[in-house]
């Protein structure tokens, strides 16, 4: 209860919220330019398979974006629950691709977020840079090492069964022939994005 009240007061005092700046930032992403059209119908929330677990529903996030609450939006857990199933986008009566807005929010937030999902996506990104392809065993091991090494024990039984069924390989992964090209690709992207 207390936390909710504090947040409400915060909004009232911040008359100078620069909603336009945040909207412009999102407009630079594909699908991020129609946020203002949102009529708050809630179809996105009601179509989302995971919205029942989110602290702020997708619809509420849209309203928070329109109000300029950038920090609160990026700190929310909503976008990390998004599975990119596009049910929301397909049904939105205003034709807003909610799933693409979620992608945009994650790519902005990932730079400062400290949670499992952010770590997972970063690990994936690094893993692919190394080998050009994603090797499940390599990904899971690195992810565990990065976040919680003990989780490897939890995954153990499942991993073992998959090994036995030939679905997993503990052979160290080899990079594709074009691995250096991939590295160059990553470098070029980083350079274009201003050393992000």
């Amino acid at each position: 209860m207390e936390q909710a009240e504090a947040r409400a007061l915060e909004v009232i005092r911040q008359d100078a919220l620069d909603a336009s700046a945040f909207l412009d930032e999102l407009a630079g992403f594909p699908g991020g330019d129609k946020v203002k059209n949102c009529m708050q119908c809630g179809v996105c929330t009601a179509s989302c398979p995971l919205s029942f677990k989110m602290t702020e529903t997708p619809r509420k996030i849209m309203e928070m974006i329109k109000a300029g609450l950038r920090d609160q939006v990026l700190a929310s857990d909503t976008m990390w629950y998004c599975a990119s199933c596009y049910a929301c986008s397909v049904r939105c009566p205003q034709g807003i691709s909610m799933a693409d807005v979620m992608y945009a929010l994650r790519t902005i937030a990932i730079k400062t977020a400290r949670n499992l999902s952010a770590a997972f996506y970063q690990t994936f990104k690094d893993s692919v840079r190394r080998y050009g392809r994603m090797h499940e065993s390599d990904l899971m091991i690195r992810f565990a090492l990065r976040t919680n090494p003990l989780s490897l024990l939890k995954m153990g039984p499942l991993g073992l069964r998959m090994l036995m069924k030939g679905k997993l390989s503990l052979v160290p992964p080899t990079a594709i022939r074009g691995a250096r090209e991939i590295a160059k690709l990553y470098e070029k992207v980083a350079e274009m994005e201003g050393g992000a």
Partner: protein
Amino acid sequence: MKVATAPGTEGQAGAATRFSFFPGCSLHTTAREYLDSVVAVMGALGVELEELDDWNCCGATALSSADMLLSYALPARNLAMVSELGLPLAVACNSCFVTLSRANSVFRSEGPWRAKVNEVLAALGRKVSKPVEIRHVLHILRDTVGLDRIRAAVKRPLAGLKVAPYYGCQLSRPRHEFSDPEFPTEMDEVLAVAGCEVVRFDRKTKCCGGALMTTKEDVVLEINEQLLREAATRGADLIAVCCPMCQMNLDAYQGKINSRFGTRYELPVVYFSQLLGFALGFDEAVMGLARGFVPATKHLRKYA
């Protein structure tokens, strides 16, 4: 997003039957049986699949959550290689299909992302000048090979085998090439010509949670239980899928779901191509039908 109209024409025999093939990272490991069965089925039906040489990971949903430009540029390397070959590209994994299509769409018009992606590719000495034709294997089977040819090639129709067709979410959304964003029929039709009794499955495109099983296990187990529950209630003998992530979540974690929710599901989850291959006469081992955590073998005994 507009509702799609049914695309393609059926049984276009004489249309392109040679494809460049993008397996994606899962098909060589956790989804080996998908690769094996697709290659076998396509071969039997006269479709040539040539694995794209030195392909790289498409990035799936992970990269578009980490870095926007990278998420377009990385799959675009594959598109650049395919466009040099001048062949259409066949894809089996839903996630790869949607990610490659997303990158491909950038080349349909003169937008800012097209220029950016081409700038990245230029640094590698590559470029994409026009969109590549990307086809999911379900469409190749239904529209290029045609249901009639498949039916004629079936050696042991799987009559009486009740199958719940589970498409997953990324196949028919947001792209509009499939017959309906929420109730597509392509897999139903292909399974039906293999002789299967396709049961009603209202949740056929409800998301399985995909990669979130790793980071949000609790809630993803919950939504997968709902999928299994409906399939079981509809009397399905097994669930047919076309995506490695859906297969993993529903199959490898079925044990965990049972212990978590006190349920007793025993539903094999197989790729539709494994069933189709089996119907075309390939034997169980080749189709990898025992490789699931919940093996499918006992349901197929009567068709031996």
